[in-house]
């Protein structure tokens, strides 16, 4: 059993160049034993290249990858203590499910009896008992993926690598598999490293997420930290939906700060940000953290004053667009100062969405701890 405090994978200053293109740019990461680690980023950000370097299918141009303390330089994929679930699943089409799952064990020279037993266990683990004699072309995409999972898990790798494991599944199945993958990881205790471009997938499954942008790690954090405390504009924008406003830091003390944003007004915060006075900063404000009010009501002002004691976090505007999504309604509001802002509102009762409609004048307020000040 690996030591949980010891990183199972150490990526040290790894750079990968394809010709003139730098796919991975000086990345250093530690992945801990037993965690569910997710590499999240837009397509072409280098996350898959990073995964393939761990598996051994690509070699780093510079830098070092250590698995369980051992340098992987010069070690081919078939000798590494990791296994991969491919995006296309790569289930061998000419072999039955049992032969697919038993392939690695057969190569390793495991005896027939033990092999059969472990194949049976692995198929049970992914809930495919009774499918042992099926051929892959008689199975659905979701089932094929389970075969690929079982085929890797049966090898008892130190790390399981998953390349966009859910991208080919439909939405319902994807949600179910997100849950099942987390459960499976709990059950087997193997380190999972998953690559995805889907933030929902990352947030729901991961213990920690590394957001990758243009070959670099933009932020490494737990899902809730990533969402609530994004480190920069890229992360704030990529993970979830956000309103971004450029502004100047005009007040910055230990327990309060204020940012002047043209078009939005002065934004008050109930904590310091430790940025230079007058610096150009950005305010990130999540749509669900903005409260909508009908204008002219003292309620809005009272609420704003309560949530931001040093000043009103208040804005006014007119609804220009709305989309009803069932659980929430999204509003596009044109601020009196000019820019657009997005606000989401939960539909707590059946007729909630009827309160506001197109061209309504509205007031908005938000709490003093809701905006995030970003320095870059």
């Amino acid at each position, binding site marked *: 059993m690996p030591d949980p405090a010891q990183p199972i994978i150490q990526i040290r200053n790894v750079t990968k160049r394809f010709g003139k293109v730098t796919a991975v740019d000086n990345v250093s990461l530690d992945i801990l034993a037993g965690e569910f680690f997710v590499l999240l980023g837009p397509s072409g950000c280098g996350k898959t290249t990073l995964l393939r370097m761990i*598996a051994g*299918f690509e070699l780093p141009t510079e830098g070092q990858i250590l698995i369980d303390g051992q340098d992987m330089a010069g070690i*081919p*994929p*078939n*000798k590494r203590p*990791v*296994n*991969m679930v*491919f*995006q*296309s699943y*790569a289930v*061998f*089409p*000419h072999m*039955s499910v049992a032969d697919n799952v038993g*392939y*690695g064990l057969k*190569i*390793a020279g495991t005896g027939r009896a033990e092999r059969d037993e472990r194949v049976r266990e692995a198929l049970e683990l992914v809930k495919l008992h009774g499918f042992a*004699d099926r*051929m892959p072309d008689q199975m659905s995409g979701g089932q094929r993926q389970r075969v*690929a999972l079982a*085929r*890797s898990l049966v*090898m008892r790798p130190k790390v399981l690598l998953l390349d966009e494991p859910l991208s080919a599944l439909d939405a319902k199945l994807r949600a179910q598999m997100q849950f099942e993958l987390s459960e499976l990881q709990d059950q087997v205790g193997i380190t999972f490293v998953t690559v995805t471009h889907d933030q929902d997938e990352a947030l729901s499954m991961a213990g920690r997420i590394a957001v990758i942008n243009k070959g670099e790690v933009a932020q490494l954090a737990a899902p809730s930290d990533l969402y609530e405390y994004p480190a920069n504009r890229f992360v704030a924008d990529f993970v979830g939906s956000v309103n971004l406003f450029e502004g100047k830091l005009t007040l910055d003390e230990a327990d309060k700060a204020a940012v002047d944003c043209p078009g939005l007004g002065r934004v008050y915060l109930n904590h310091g940000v430790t940025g230079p006075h007058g610096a150009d900063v950005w305010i990130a404000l999540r749509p669900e953290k903005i409260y909508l009010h009908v204008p002219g009501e003292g309620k809005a002002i009272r609420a704003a004053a309560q949530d931001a004691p040093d000043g009103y976090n208040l804005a006014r505007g007119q609804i220009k667009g709305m989309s009803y999504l069932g659980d929430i309604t999204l509003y596009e509001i044109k601020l009196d100062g000019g820019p657009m802002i997005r606000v989401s509102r939960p539909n707590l009762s059946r007729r909630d969405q009827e309160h506001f409609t197109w061209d309504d004048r509205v007031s908005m307020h938000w709490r003093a701890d809701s905006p995030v000040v970003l320095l870059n």
Partner: protein
Amino acid sequence: MSLQNWQEHKRPFAAIAGAPILWLALFFIVPMAIVWAYSFGENSGAADIVISGTLHNYKRAIEALYLSIFFKSLAVAALVTLICLIVGFPVAMAITFASDKWRPWLLLGVMLPFWTNLLIRTYALMTVLGGNGYANKALGALWGSASWLRTLVGLQPLEVWTPVQLLYNNFAVVLGLVYVHLPFMVLPLYSALDRLDRSLIEASLDLGAGHLRTLSRIVMPLAAPGIFAGIMITLIPALGAYLTPDLMGGTDSQMIANVIERQFKRANDWPFGAALSFMLIYAMFALVALQSLRGRRKPAQVH
């Protein structure tokens, strides 16, 4: 108008397919039918053939003399096919895994011989293999330098180099046929390998298999249709090869096509030539039937 279903659009389909079908019927099926009919006929006079329905020609065709030539042709063709497969598979692999920049050029290299006349290619090969050809000159030079090296260390020099007989024997025929038929093998292999999902190979490596086992357990089984197509497309023309054994072979290396040619031309025995030709065609039918049988068995193979 959609033309996806010929049953719904009989007339436009007839208009489009009519000309080629007519062409095929007129210039392929009719002459073949005539030759087939000849195979049941006998000579009457210098230029007349009577279709009498006799099986005499076939009886002659299965005499030991002709049957042995037929089986020898089959053996030569099979050997040629095997060599083509052994040589062609790595070539097809190399083309498949070459970079995008190189692949078209390598494919061009394989196809280039197609654009050169077979006769010219055969004569070119003959100049290489001849008694004073480059192959013998190179071997002679090697021999000479080996001899010279022996004198350096104080040994007796070797005997004078006598050119090796590389031409006008069975070896030359096999070499020539391999040379001519290699592209036929490489192209179907390449197209099968190119269709192979690369991640299957990576998955095999990932699961601990080395390159050789990945080749034998994943790549070859999945490329089997291409391998089989390559075998058929090489074996059939090699079986009926005429020019190569005629030009490069010796007295003992004639193949069935050379015997057939002699019946039509020198012996002026068209009925017997026709019967021999159709023996060859029946054999090819059998091979093709074997292939389609294999194709049909495939779903049943799923265990």
